[in-house]
């Protein structure tokens, strides 16, 4: 009998808990977005909501305003890290997103606080320009102004950052581990490095006869369609060879990107 009421109270409690770590981010005209204090003095938000050459201010849940500056950006994950002195605001309780399962009840929150509830609909979503495994697809409504806000579990722990800029087709959140990785890059080096090879690629399916001739089990490969001059790919003879042959039997597009990112998953 009380289970549903307990769940309702838990959800409301989670909103109250998380709203203490949230800010309204004024980094674009009109509609403010949402940010989360990930580490003391570092606030994470959606990159597309913080315009270049614009003064950024944060408004806390108690109405206080703080000046902020952009400490790092990762446009491909649509995450910006802001630096701000926000006394009296604690850093978010970030959960291990490895525990997240498809079907879990989650909430997306926006500054205010505002809430939207739904379930995790898919894990390890990675399409287009995004690194595989950095996105969680969610079945909930991301309302205007939610971008950069936290995706939270029923205990009120942050498991990701929601942004409409992550995918054109899905409601998505950037996994907390990916966000933490970017924030730690900012702490260490003051910038978010990205891998850069300098090739344009096209994924293709390997026909069966070709797989047999090459003695490979893999279903797909990538064609190098373009090599940018003065890029790392243009520097080595292997890069030129694969460009000349026009076909390279490698792994699929995602794993190529992951290999470029290095064995630890860091992008260098």
């Amino acid at each position, binding site marked *: 009998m009380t289970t549903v009421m307990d769940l309702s109270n838990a959800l409301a409690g989670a909103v109250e808990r998380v709203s203490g770590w949230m800010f309204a981010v004024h980094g674009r005209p009109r509609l403010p977005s949402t940010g989360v204090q990930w580490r003391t003095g570092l606030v994470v938000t959606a990159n597309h909501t913080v315009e270049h050459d614009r003064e950024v201010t944060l408004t806390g849940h108690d109405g206080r305003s703080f000046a902020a500056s952009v400490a790092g950006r990762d446009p491909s994950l649509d995450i910006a890290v802001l630096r701000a002195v926000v006394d009296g605001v604690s850093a978010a309780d970030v959960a291990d997103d490895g525990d997240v399962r498809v079907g879990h009840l989650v909430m997306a929150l926006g500054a*205010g606080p*505002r*809430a*939207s*509830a*739904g379930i995790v609909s898919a894990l390890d979503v990675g399409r287009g320009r995004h690194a595989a495994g950095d996105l969680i697809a969610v079945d909930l*409504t991301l*309302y205007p102004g939610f971008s950069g806000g936290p995706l939270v579990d029923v205990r009120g722990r942050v498991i990701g950052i929601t942004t409409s800029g992550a995918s054109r087709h899905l409601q998505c959140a950037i996994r907390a581990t990916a966000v933490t990785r970017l924030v730690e890059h900012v702490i260490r080096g003051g910038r978010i490095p990205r891998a850069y090879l300098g090739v344009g690629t096209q994924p293709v399916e390997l026909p069966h006869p070709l797989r047999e001739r090459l003695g490979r089990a893999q279903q797909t490969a990538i064609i190098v369609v373009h090599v940018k001059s003065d890029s790392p790919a243009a520097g080595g003879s292997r890069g030129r060879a694969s460009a000349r042959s026009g076909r390279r039997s490698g792994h699929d597009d995602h794993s190529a990107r992951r290999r470029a990112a290095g064995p630890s998953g860091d992008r260098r």
Partner: protein
Amino acid sequence: MSALLAAEESIPHLARIADQLRQVTVEIRSPGGSGVGAGILWAPDLVVTNAHVARGSCVGVGLADERWIEAHLVVADRRMDLALFRIPRCGVAPAALGDSDTLRVGALVVALGHPLGLRRTLTAGVVHALGPARPGGRRFIHADVRLAPGNSGGPLADTAGQVVGMNTMIAGGLALAIPINDVGRFVASATASTT
């Protein structure tokens, strides 16, 4: 919301409060009107609904037991979008009322109404925000609950089955409900001025 449909299967409590709410959710049919709106059985002889739902001084009220009775307007406030109607005592227990001032963002809520004519349909979600829809406007309960035409005038209730709001409009995909304490003040002043 699919998560809550799953919750309803495993936890019979939600189904039970839905049954209670169906008893106090009435249909409102205005003379000459083609659509059906919703209303809340406030007292054994009083029904409250949105003013935009019940046009005219005499409307038809459909009860959950399929009875249709005639309702006469006590008072309507177009600005508040509220209307109070008197009905013959119907013998059905009226709605249990909650306190909309203690509602919290994130709390689970359910809405009952007749969306697109589907009678006494339950939809569920959470409280999205509390406050005005635009700066300086009146206070609403904003709920992340799917509504459609036919929900207007119907109850928004908490997980105890207590009515906390009256679903009034849809804005930006959100349900906007008049807090039930505001509805209570309207009914109190309406009944005080007419007795």
